[in-house]
């Protein structure tokens, strides 16, 4: 049976992990390669690395980092942050990334999704959507959530799917950082209308939140950052819990 995936997300700035990660086992808590390898040992199913500086001059530093991750991590990983073109993606995939994720660039130029799917295959194209609920619906935001748009989340998700994306990484800005649980409503609405995997993101704070999102929506994976980095939830314990609750996970 296909397992539900648990994905830690690491934010990278100038080649270093940020968010004050504190791991006793690590010699260097700021080293994304070492942290990634540790998560792989702990049965994380995949890793996501987001380059939050993402300036032109940092591009080659990030590609070098991707190469180091590929050498040291034996599970699939996705990279993103500031990707604007087919050329950017080509460099990151050639450096050893399994998938790439695009966000603002896809909204600005939806054709990019089509081009990437055609050039590299849908399986490596993850479109990230930052969604915020207000009034009666959910709308997407770009530029790290700073810029609101008039696009409805569900309609955009459908377009992203139709254009050949392989997965959608759906972050709810309403639940992100609250630790009160994933946004079940928008995750369900998006996963119900598309036939590609949805990664739920934003709001994980407890074991039960993962169970809720897997039981009540069509999400295939759940992504979280600080709760894993700060050891509030350990991935092996989370998997034990989900397994006991009857949810298929890789142990």
């Amino acid at each position: 049976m296909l397992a539900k995936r648990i994905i830690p997300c690491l934010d990278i700035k100038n080649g270093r992990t940020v968010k004050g990660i504190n791991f006793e086992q690590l010699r260097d808590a700021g080293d994304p390669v070492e942290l990634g390898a540790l998560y792989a040992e702990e049965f994380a199913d995949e890793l996501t690395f987001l380059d939050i500086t993402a300036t032109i001059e940092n591009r080659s530093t990030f590609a070098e980092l991707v190469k180091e991750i590929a050498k040291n991590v034996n599970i699939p990983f996705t990279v993103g942050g500031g990707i604007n073109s087919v050329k950017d993606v080509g460099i990151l995939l050639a450096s050893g990334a399994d998938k790439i994720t695009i966000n603002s660039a896809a909204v600005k130029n939806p054709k990019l999704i089509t081009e990437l799917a055609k050039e590299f295959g849908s399986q490596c194209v993850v479109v990230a959507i930052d969604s915020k609920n207000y009034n009666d619906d959910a709308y997407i935001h770009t530029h790290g959530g700073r810029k609101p748009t008039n696009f409805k989340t569900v309609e955009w998700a459908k377009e992203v799917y139709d254009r050949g994306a392989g997965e959608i990484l759906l972050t709810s800005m309403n639940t992100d950082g609250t630790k009160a649980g994933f946004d079940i409503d928008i995750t369900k609405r998006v996963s119900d209308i598309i036939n590609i995997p949805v990664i739920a993101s934003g709001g994980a704070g407890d074991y039960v939140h993962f169970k809720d999102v897997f039981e009540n929506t069509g999400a295939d994976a759940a992504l979280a950052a600080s709760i894993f980095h700060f050891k509030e939830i350990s991935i092996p314990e989370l998997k034990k819990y989900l397994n006991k609750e009857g949810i298929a996970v890789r142990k």
Partner: protein
Amino acid sequence: MLAIIKYNAGNIQSVAYALNRLGIEPVITDNPKELQKADKIIFPGVGEASTAMAYLQETGLDKLIPNLKQPVLGICLGMQLMCRYSEENNTKCLGIFDAEVKKFPNTKKVPHIGWNTIFDCKTPLFKDIPTNEYMYFVHSYYVPETDFAISKTDYIFKYSSALNKDNFYGTQFHPEKSGDAGEKIIKNFIEM
């Protein structure tokens, strides 16, 4: 010496890195003499069948691969190309395994992405791999159940997730991305 067949496939570097983690420095080559000289050969593959076959035909690798005598391991598209025919753009393949590669129906999410279990495992390729071990899959096309199957997986229905005939082995999953269990399978292949 272990050789990786060099062609227009997407995961050559990932396979090379996985071998490096096991302390092996593979030779990545499309040179027929070097390939024939290798003790073991890995035939990787991420991409599209007709484009890959066209490249193999241009370089003459389509004649060379079916005649190799040493253990050969095809991965993902590599395994599919070792079959007779693929529905992906109606492609005639290498014909090592008398099997057809079909497209998954859209009754579930396609591609099949993520960690799924393998069972009915046979041959020393799966030595010390417990049944229902999880492996990492990314594919839209599959090989139905066949006599060549040495492991099976269930997605939409049961299908062949690894194949063997004589010295030829193939895995639909990616051992190079399947954590420690995947590394064990690569190690088993190296020790054949």
